[in-house]
């Protein structure tokens, strides 16, 4: 008898588990419409509704609609968390953690709080599967910041705030793309469109609590640039130079194109804005996106901002992903050391080998960019506990080199939070 009860309980339990519907969205389909602000996106989310049939074989319409609406909300949140080209969760670790909590995360009560607004119209409403299922498409505005905060609280992802405490969010500089021979800061001063573009991007970044460096506000900028320019391996790219000089982790360039035509008596304008993000130390392209505004009979500033809104969110997502990866490796510095030609090439080589050994001690990862007879260009990812400032790198290098090379001394050429330019002089 006991055996029968246990078997029944097991079968009943299994049946209950199997019949329980998963909270993970069925459709997983959403279309990004617009980034309506730094913490909100508008999506057209598709939901697939299902409902039980009654004894007449009829599907309950209300249940079907409610189920489709809920699935559309879940699909919208799924898109923000895992879907699209720039989801919140990017690493396998994060995705794996999320898989463990997704059933509770996608519970109706939980996801409803992320939906800031939902259209009461259906963009699409179609019965499928012989009328047993309903596919709908609705517009909704999702509060992405709240989603991110909750994922941090659930331990799925690392909070940007945590990053700030440890090593700070990436410092970003924004400048327009300058044609050859033009200086980007001059363009900012002379072109109102470009100025507006910079303001919009900077507003986005500050709203996300990134450190934004405004180069035209930097005192002695020209001196810093000149110092960087003296380095022979540095390319002739003024934006790159400025970014290096001001110590930005990442720099963003952009260009704005506006077109207009007439519809009736009105001039309608459309803006296309290309936004590109680079890693400052290497000039590596982190992300590029072109955003388009709708064609509107409005002022330039409005279509430019609309175009930037369309692009910036995706680029920022890629910067964040890059930053997370980089954080795992340590704090990145670009170190350029030039050895005085007073040393012989053989002596200079020994000095550089010594420097490399020091790098291996202080950094989790290193990357050699350039090594010539008298110059060494290195990227190091130093332990952020010990080397939270570039002066610490400088100090340890100085100590080690001056010990290893008694007739040489290490001098500072330029030092900022990203760039360490040093020279070894013969005493």
């Amino acid at each position, binding site marked *: 008898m006991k055996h029968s009860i246990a078997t029944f309980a097991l079968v009943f339990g299994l049946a209950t588990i199997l019949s329980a519907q998963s909270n993970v969205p069925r459709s997983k389909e959403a279309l990004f419409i*617009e980034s309506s602000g730094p913490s909100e996106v508008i999506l057209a989310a598709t939901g697939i509704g299902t409902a039980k049939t009654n004894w007449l074989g009829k599907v309950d319409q*209300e249940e079907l609609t409610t189920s489709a609406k809920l699935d559309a909300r879940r699909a919208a949140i799924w898109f923000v968390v895992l879907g699209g080209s720039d989801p919140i969760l990017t690493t396998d670790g994060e995705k794996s953690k999320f898989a463990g909590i997704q059933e509770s995360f996608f519970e109706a009560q939980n996801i409803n709080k992320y939906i800031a607004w939902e*259209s009461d119209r259906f963009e699409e409403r*179609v019965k499928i599967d012989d009328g047993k299922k309903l*596919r709908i498409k609705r*517009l909704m505005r999702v509060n992405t910041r709240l989603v991110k905060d909750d994922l941090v609280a659930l331990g799925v992802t690392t909070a940007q705030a945590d990053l700030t405490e440890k090593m700070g969010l990436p410092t970003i500089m924004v400048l327009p793309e300058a044609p050859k021979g033009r200086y980007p800061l001059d363009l900012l001063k002379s072109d109102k469109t470009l100025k507006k573009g910079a303001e919009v991007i900077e507003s986005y970044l500050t709203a996300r609590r990134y450190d934004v460096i405004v180069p035209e506000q930097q005192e002695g900028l020209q001196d810093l640039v000149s110092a960087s320019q003296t380095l022979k391996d540095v390319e002739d790219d003024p934006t790159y130079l400025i970014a290096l000089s001001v110590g930005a982790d990442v720099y963003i360039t952009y260009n704005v194109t506006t077109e207009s*035509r007439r519809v*009736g008596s009105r001039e309608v304008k459309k803006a296309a804005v290309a936004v590109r993000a680079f890693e400052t130390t290497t000039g590596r392209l982190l992300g590029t996106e072109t955003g388009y505004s709708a064609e*509107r009979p409005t002022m330039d500033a409005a279509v430019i*901002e609309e175009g930037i809104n369309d692009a910036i969110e995706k680029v920022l997502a890629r910067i964040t992903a890059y930053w997370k990866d980089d954080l795992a490796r340590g704090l990145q510095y670009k170190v350029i050391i030039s050895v005085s030609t007073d040393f012989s090439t053989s002596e200079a080589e020994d000095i550089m080998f010594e420097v490399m050994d020091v790098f291996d001690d202080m950094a989790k990862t290193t990357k050699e960019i350039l090594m010539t007879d008298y110059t060494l260009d290195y990227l190091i990812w130093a332990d952020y506990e010990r080397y939270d400032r570039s002066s610490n790198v400088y100090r340890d290098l100085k100590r080690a080199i001056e010990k290893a090379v008694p007739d040489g001394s290490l001098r500072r050429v330029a030092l900022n939070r990203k760039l360490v330019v040093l020279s070894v002089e013969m005493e």
Partner: protein
Amino acid sequence: MPVQPTNKERNMRNLIFFMLLGAVALSVSGQNDTYTRKSVTFLDAIILASPDARNLSLNQISYIGKTVKERVQLPRFDFNPLPENSPLTREFISEVNSRNALSVDEIAEIMNRTFVPEIVKIMDEYAEQRASELVDEATKMSFITTKAKDMGITAENLEQVLNSGFIYLPYMNGYSRAVDSEKEDDKTKYTVTVSIGGGIFWFKIAYMDGKTSVKPVVKNESTSIGFATKYDFEDAEENAFEAAVLNYARNLENATKEYDEFKLTTQVAEVVGTQVGFRMGKREGLRIDDRFIVGEYVESSNGEMKFKRDGFVRIGQIADNRENASELSHGYGVIVGDWAPGMSLVEYPRLNLDIYILMGTLPLSTESSLYDVEGGGGLGAEIAYNLGGITQTPHWYFDLAAMIGGASITDSWTGDDIFDSVTRFLVSGSVMKRMQWRRFDAYGQLGFAHQQTWGNWDDSMGDTYTDRNANNGLLVGLGLNYTLSIDLTAGIRYSLYTGESDEWTRYNADNEEVGSISGPALRYSGSGIAFQIIYAPPSLAFDPASTLSNMIP
């Protein structure tokens, strides 16, 4: 001194030419389930497309133009009136008149060359305001409206407005008049029957990069008859003509609504029991008891999309969305399906009246012991004009009915028929209120009935006489109907009549009164039961109400 025609009349007169009434391509509506307002321009001109139509007088043409305009200028349209006597319109008329015969496409081409740029200018003037109504919900929530404080209009919205232009051009291709007269008390009574035929051509303006083109898209046609009997010939002619034109214009109004692009469509916003709420109202000119099909799109396994009907609603309450766009109108379900928010509502245009076909009995009896009197079966028709526009609540009607049937009047002693044949006739006017519950509706009716009984007999000389008895009384009716389809209902009615009369009047074969006679006192009181079929027509050949009123000399 001859009366000089006005400029307007000159225009009318000028626009008399033959036209090859070609077929017009119908546009097919897509899956869009929200009506967008159309911009309509009318011309103060009518094409006279047949030799009969050229017999119309200037006043008649003017009356047709005015009446059609009043009916076709629906609240669902925005209007772009061309300035009166615009040189561009005159140029159009002059060019059209210079040609012997024209096809519809040729007219479209002349329109495009002459006054269409002017229409586009007018549309352009209002484009921003009209385009702002097309801004979707996502845009209203987006940066462009919330932060940039812009109206959110796109070039697409503006182009949609500039491509929403239609021009309508009425035409007449049939007109005939028949006159009958008879002497009555030294006066001549004229009965005039006017028959007219014609329609409206709708042209669509297309705008692209500053260039316009015009193409004919739909042709609505109608024919109509008007009757009048008057002692004054001119009155009879005028009343018959006006009755025909009014009915013709009403038919065209409904035909216009039937064009897919002009049909009101929207989404169901809420479903409460058998009631649905939706965003549309006075601004679109909804009428109480208007019919809307409820349906949804269904995708088959091979990916084909079809619109599946699932019952219909009638309008029960109309929101004033001119003030508050989010206010919902409500419809009551008649054939109720599995409804849910998001389903589509598609207008099913019908005239604002119902036609009843009746088959039943009419009561007739007597208290006289000399006669046996018995009512018989009858056939009839009733027209119920919807009073929703006045009552603002559903299912109120003003009914006009006529029924004809037989009866038997026999000698109670011998059992012989008193007359060779006996006919019963009833006309009534009443107010009816129906109460709908899904497919069923019950109704009550109260009004007046005029009833007649007449018997024919031949005397020994072979002369035929008719003895007639008439009565005016009250009518109280109850009924129960079952809706078969969106425009067809079947039911039964139980009617109670009052009154009796012992006044008999004799007429000879020429319908001349011979004198009063004594006969059985007929009781019209009692009940009648009838089976009824109710049909909601898209058009009528003539209007019974105006016909009835025009029958009073």
